[in-house]
């Protein structure tokens, strides 16, 4: 299996959240298939870019924001564009 690039890993993480509607951080880490240190890096980046949001309270849940959904919609366009221009 080819090594996933950053854009693909982000897409996979967002896809897991989308499929579950909302998910806790630990199962998300398990299903995303990346090391915990890498996951933390991506998780913080996704929060910072406002692709995901955490619900406050005791049971922290993660959900997608509009930007997160938009990323998933545009993912194939991004990949095709990068591929087309060899970026």
């Amino acid at each position, binding site marked *: 299996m080819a090594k996933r690039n950053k*854009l693909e890993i982000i897409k996979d993480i967002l896809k897991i959240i989308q499929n579950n509607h909302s998910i806790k951080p630990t199962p998300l880490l398990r299903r995303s298939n990346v090391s915990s240190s890498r996951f933390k890096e991506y998780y913080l980046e996704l929060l910072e*870019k406002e692709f995901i949001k955490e619900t406050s309270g005791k049971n922290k849940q993660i959900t997608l924001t509009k*930007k997160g959904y*938009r*990323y998933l919609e*545009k993912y194939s*366009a*991004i990949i*095709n*564009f*990068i591929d*087309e*221009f*060899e*970026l």
Partner: protein
Amino acid sequence: MVSMTGRAVGQGLGQGLGKLMSSSIGIEIIYSFVIILCSLMIYFGTRELYKLSSHKGIKYFRQSFLFFALAYFFRSFIKIILFYFDAGEIRALLPIFGNITLFIFMYFSSMAIFYLIYSVMWKKWKSKSIVYLFHLMAFAIAIIIILFRNQFVYLLINLLLFVFIAFIFYKSHRQSKKKKSHHLYIIYLLLFVFWIFNIIDILIPNYLQTFQLFIYLISLGIFLSILYKVIRRIG
């Protein structure tokens, strides 16, 4: 007296406008407008892809076309001034203003070319200081153009620039495994060749006069084909 002066100003403006709209400057304005529009459409059309992905390749690609738009703006500005005052060289007409405009044009032109190369090569050139090196090289090229008022120097600089670009692209193309990248490299190489013709056209007026329309048509074709590729991919 007042009405006489008003009529004279009106006549002058009318003559100026008529001169401006004559065929050669008309072609020049349309040509620049289409290229600037294409470049800005590429720049703004890819904004969302960059904002979502933060991909460096997309960033450098967009910046390249922003520089192309700015360079073409200054190029057409120089051309219109030269045409309006019926002059051969902008520096002979307006020494300080001409030198500044030419400097900005050369700097933006070089940066557009360097950023387009970097958009393809950034994964191989890991060093962050390369961008600063590009700015330095563009600055040096612009300074040389200002200091040396020699056609041989202009041609030599553009030839060296082309050899540098061709060498990088040839190396990159040989390393690329994708078949379709062949078309992209041809488009980019043509873009560089005709962009250099556009630069020579400004630096050495009348040097490429015979082929001007041909250069304009090919340049338009190249920019439109890149825009088409972009639109096809971004949807």
